[in-house]
């Protein structure tokens, strides 16, 4: 879903990170940007206050939902 802010078209991205190789990736936040490059720059600027060993972003549109709260599995 696109919506208009400063940019003509933006996308939402979920940000995932972990602090050690042993722990699973977890969602630490989200960013909104017009392209992948700016989304990466924003994710790093916004969420780099902790010592992550790994960080990645995923376009929210790429996430395939199986069911949502209140829905049957």
């Amino acid at each position, binding site marked *: 879903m696109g919506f208009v802010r400063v940019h003509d078209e933006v996308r939402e991205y979920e940000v995932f990170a972990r602090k050690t190789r042993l722990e699973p990736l977890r969602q630490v936040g989200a960013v*909104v940007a017009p*392209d992948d490059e*700016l989304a990466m*720059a*924003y994710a*790093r*600027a*916004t969420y780099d206050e902790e010592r992550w060993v790994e960080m990645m972003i995923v376009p929210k549109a790429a996430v395939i939902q199986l069911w949502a709260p209140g829905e049957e599995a």
Partner: protein
Amino acid sequence: MRYAEWCIAAPTLEADIAAAAMGLDDIGHSRVLYGSLRELGTPDVVDEPGSYANVPYLDRPWTDWTAFVAANGVLDTGFTLMIEALAGGNVEVLRSRLKKMLQEERYHAMHGRSWMRESGAVTAIDQARRDAVVWFGPEGSDVDDLHGKGILSLGVRELRRRLDEQVGGSAESAAIDWKAWDPMRRRINPGGIDELTLNMLQGLAEKRYMPAGA
């Protein structure tokens, strides 16, 4: 310092945060570079207006977001190319210390490139590109001399070529009149940084907020 001025004035909250983060990165980079220079035996310079070797683009606060975008996309790329040349040279202190700086600058470049794609900052980009080329210096100057000694892994011509490649357009070095180039301050234009910013850089501005006798 100029990045920090935009940390509450950028077009989006995310860009505000990025401006603050990039400003902090660059303060850290300055500390590493000054520390390396000291370790390499470079004497401290007297902190006075004429000793600042900033590019003219940084003389005054930017009044338009496109000026930020061009500095971020073009000047920052120019500085990063020089850091790359130092990190690829034969001075061990610089080879080992500048790698983290290059990793952080990668995100500055992404931020600058993306905003340049949509901000229409043509005039500001041309000005920033010219300042970056002047900062590299003319062919056959100190940069090429250091390249010849292996201290820098890139010479002037290659620095310009990579700037063109990464930023787009042409560095138009032929249009620059090098006769007035100051090799110490690495600029052609006279002048320097504005007084208010200079006071902040020298720590004078903070003293105004301290109670008397503190």
